[in-house]
């Protein structure tokens, strides 16, 4: 939609990246703390993921024998795609200078690129666990991507654009759209795929030590030290970006819009705070929900994801019929 670069847009995009980069480990910390408290444990504190990252960064880098450039590059690709996604997705401002790239297809492809890089790295280790994890992750990815595309597509039909900023702006101007059947169906579908994509219960268990049950963790078993820190940090950012995307697609209020000059700049801190609050709330709710859920049998996961795809498809259909 908007092609011109504004000062507020540039500052906003930079602030988004900084907020996601610094805040995403805290979000993971909050989610773990919520779980711990609900289970009657004291918990390690919200700062623990940052402490873990600091610890890992101080260790020496180790690569297993026989691994090549793919293994070494994957954490960088994963982190880079997550950072770019953080700059592109409308988190604090819809006026990002990268707005032209904030196309839903581009963002989905960016996130998929990171996943594929990690899966290739897992195959590069030539360990049984790496291959197993990669195969499972690809199965999940293949079922998740179409659903993401479908549900955001459903939201884009009324707007007439697949630009994420445009969708968010349009929801800001017509808030009644949020309660439309299209929006509700798409919201449920997206929520399911976000859970799958970020490896949360009931699809994957991020807290398990049982290698044979892992999906995401099985792929990164061979990483250690700074590389592992990068992978963990990038995973936290992906979680934040995906939760943020869900939050702003369905509840965009607080985001800095297409105002000009100092007004827009002044709105940024508020937008960042609103985003932090929304994502924390969503993350906390996800963690609280997880506590009362068990992990699905591996072969039931496709059923769950197929269900979410059907919802997304219905949302697309509804967006045409109810337009």
């Amino acid at each position, binding site marked *: 939609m908007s092609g011109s670069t504004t000062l507020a847009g540039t500052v906003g995009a930079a602030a988004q990246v900084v907020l996601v980069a610094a805040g995403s480990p805290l979000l993971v910390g909050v989610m773990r703390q919520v779980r711990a408290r609900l289970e009657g*444990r004291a918990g390690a504190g919200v700062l623990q993921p940052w402490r873990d990252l600091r610890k890992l960064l101080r260790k020496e880098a180790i690569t297993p024998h026989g691994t090549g450039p793919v293994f070494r590059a994957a954490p960088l690709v994963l982190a880079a795609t997550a950072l770019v996604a953080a700059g592109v997705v409308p988190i604090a401002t819809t006026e990002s200078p990268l707005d032209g790239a904030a196309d839903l297809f581009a963002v989905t492809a960016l996130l998929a690129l990171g996943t594929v890089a990690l899966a290739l790295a897992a195959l590069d280790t030539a360990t*049984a666990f790496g291959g*197993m994890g990669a195969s499972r992750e690809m199965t999940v990815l293949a079922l998740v991507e179409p659903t993401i595309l479908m549900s955001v597509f459903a939201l884009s039909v009324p707007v007439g654009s697949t630009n994420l900023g445009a969708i968010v702006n349009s929801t800001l101007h017509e808030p009644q759209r949020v309660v439309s059947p299209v929006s509700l169906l798409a919201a449920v579908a997206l929520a399911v795929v976000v859970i799958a994509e970020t490896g949360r219960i009931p699809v994957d268990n991020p807290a*398990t030590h049982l*290698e*044979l049950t892992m999906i995401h963790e099985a792929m990164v078993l061979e990483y250690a030290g700074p590389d592992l820190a990068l992978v963990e940090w990038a995973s936290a950012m992906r979680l934040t970006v995906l939760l943020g995307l869900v939050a702003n697609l369905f509840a965009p209020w607080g985001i800095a819009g297409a105002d000009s000059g100092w007004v827009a700049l002044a709105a940024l801190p508020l937008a960042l705070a609103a985003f932090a609050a929304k994502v924390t709330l969503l993350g906390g709710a996800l963690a609280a929900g997880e506590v009362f859920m*068990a*992990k699905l049998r591996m072969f039931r996961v496709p059923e769950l994801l197929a269900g979410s795809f059907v919802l997304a498809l219905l949302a697309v259909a509804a967006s045409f019929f109810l337009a």
Partner: protein
Amino acid sequence: MTTEPTHQDPAARTVADVAPAELPDRVAALLAEHHRPALVAAHQDPDALRVVYLFTAASPDRRTELHVRLDPDDPVLPSLAALSFPVGRFEREMHDLYGIVPKDHPLPRRLVRHHHWPRGWYPMRADAGPPPAFGDPEGPYPFVSVEGRGVYEIPVGPVHAGLIEPGHFRFSVVGESILKLKARLWFVHKGVEKLFQGRVPADALELAERVSGDTSVGHALAFCLAVEEATGMRVPPEAQRMRAVLLELERLYNHVTDLGALCNDVAHSVLNAQFGRVREQLLRLNAEVTGHRLLRGGVVLGGAVLRTVPDAYRLKALGEDVAEIVDLALGHTVVADRFTGTAPLSTAAARDLGTLGYVARASGVDVDARRDHPFTDLGPTLTVPTCDTGDVLARFRIRAEEIAVSIALIGELADGMAPGRIGSWAPSKARDGLASGVGIVEGWRGTITHRVELAADGTLARVKIVDPSFFNWPALPVALNGAIVPDFPLVNKSFNLSYAGNDL
């Protein structure tokens, strides 16, 4: 007082010397009379190698021993593997530790030995000496590899994530389905049986308590019963009742732990946290009763010590707690779905493999040494729940039902019990020459059997320990046939077998 129960002598053992050639027929006859092989142990006598086969049968309690003498220069036995699968495994164990050769064994591969053990070195022989330097003479274990399109292997362990014991699992997998699983154990073989030798029984009790950390009462009690039979020591009935209480307390805390761990393995952490809460209360109760959270020091030779008698009301409340959490677990659709139909072990397989404990009972094999080989009469309060589906759900349910039975038993046994130490009565008969004794106990995992032989000076000449895990380990790969890889940790937990008790 006339109403006081009298001392209950263990069932008499019939002992027969058998020539190697007669052995298969004698064993076939015993198996036809519903005996099960409880223990096979090799012994080194001054002039011969001697193998003792202990067979037991229930209702009435029968224990039959067959002793076979072998030429020490050419120790060859006819293999009984065709008659009984567990005996075949005992034969492989004897081969690795004593060098006794089972003739015509269908699976003569090594069982205990690892590839760094020197060839021809048999650690249990009297002349074995200290362990020689490790080499690589045996070579890697010859795993059977499954071939076909898309078949690959997943090697897991022996070092695992998390605090569990070492075992190597080799999965042959196509997609996510398990075609074959081979479990290699004996990574924690430490020569426990040899450590017993030469000790006086009272000094060996501590060792028996530590055979498997979670079964201190079970192994200590089986050891004490065996020594008491060998020495003719008489244990007052009140002491036997105290021991029964301790045995049930051990069953309680372990079963509750397992129920929680099963929920944790399907990622339902709140249920695990709740079972963990109950477990902690049970462990604290254990500490009050014996001074040790894992119940060490409660069973002593000839008697038992209780610091306090467990409060039946407290236990009853905990039992209601457990029942409620179990209902919550089975009422959760995803948890129930993960348990139901997962890795079923058929009744026929469970019987043929000689499984014991909750694994057997979940598959419809009605065995329980508390009823079949009692050291104290538990009366009608003792019920033995069985289930015939043999899946993870059945193993979960059996544990939950056994918890209720255990609590009822403790309530009845503790009624009128006074804390304190109860020692033994004087021996009923004088002991002559080499004496032996057998102790059979239903530990929380299943039937534990100890057999001791005492030298003339009263020290232990040979102790053979059989943990139920030795019988149950082969059932795990059988149950997993056709299961999927991500279900393995759950199924493994539902069996929850001991490595330490198996590897010895």
